[in-house]
């Protein structure tokens, strides 16, 4: 069964029809999606500022403690609103190659976030001391670029017509 067939089937379910017919729901979901993007990207940015030593040097673990919860809360909101948007407009997303690329990039970004947290838990000292700092700072740039790429892919979904 192809993605297009799945999307076709999904678009005819009562849930999908209900989401599409509630005129206010999709704009509301998109607003939540934007607010959640703000939570995620700003949390990543604030942690990156600390990694790049552009803010006062509190322990890395403290910075993570302040912002990682917001990152995850944002991701949960993105998942919830995103899932509802997919169910409401399955043909716009599921068979769309740009959407699929976006999901792949998202998986990588989430993996990077988990890796960061694990690394902190195992040995937070390596984040605070000078050795290996260049690598951490490059990784920080890389993940920020990754999140921006996800935003670019998201906008491009609308411009690729499928099926």
């Amino acid at each position: 069964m192809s993605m297009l067939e799945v999307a076709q089937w999904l678009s005819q379910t009562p849930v999908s029809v209900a989401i599409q017919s509630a005129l206010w729901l999709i704009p509301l979901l998109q607003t939540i999606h934007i607010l959640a993007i703000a939570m995620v990207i700003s949390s990543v940015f604030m942690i990156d500022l600390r990694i790049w030593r552009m803010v006062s040097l509190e322990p890395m673990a403290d910075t993570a403690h302040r912002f990682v919860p917001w990152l995850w809360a944002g991701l949960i909101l993105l998942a919830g609103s995103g899932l509802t948007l997919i169910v409401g407009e399955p043909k716009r997303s599921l068979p769309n190659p740009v959407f699929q690329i976006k999901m792949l990039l998202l998986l990588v970004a989430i993996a990077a976030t988990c890796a960061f947290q694990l690394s902190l838990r195992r040995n937070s000292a390596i984040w605070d001391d000078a050795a290996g700092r260049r690598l951490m700072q490059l990784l920080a740039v890389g993940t920020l670029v990754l999140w921006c790429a996800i935003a670019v892919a998201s906008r491009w979904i609308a411009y690729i017509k499928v099926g």
Partner: protein
Amino acid sequence: MHSIGDLLRWLEDSAFAVSITQSDWAFPALETVHVLALSLVLGTVCVVDLRLLGWASRQRPYRELAREVLPWTWIAFCFSVASGGLMFITQAVEYYENVAFRLKMTLLLLAGLNMAIFELFTVRDAAKWGQGMSASWRAKLAGALSLSLWVAIVFFGRRIGFTMMPE
């Protein structure tokens, strides 16, 4: 005699605006920059406002936190205005007459006013808002207003997208 309408039509008909409209990628690129920039504005404003409200980052002294974060807010805001401005000129007349757009601009002005009042008067007590210390009630009010206004700005920004006729 020149009116606002003439100026808007002139902007919309300019070669520059037309080139953006005719390009396949320019407008989506501007929208993407706009979303990323506004996300950073909202997020960094949130960090500072939550400190004012005493709900987060309480262990950081206010002035230090504001000094570190707000420059980035301004940089992100410049990108928002630039990308927003370039989108605006492509349909200047329609945007100007769009209710959601007008509401958003009004809210932006109010957010600016709130910030100006805070920076000119309320922040004089900021030395007291040190590590673990609460800000004054006026500061908390400014923080709460700021947060509410910016969320509303995002909401009406999205509304513009839904109420404009596609080019």
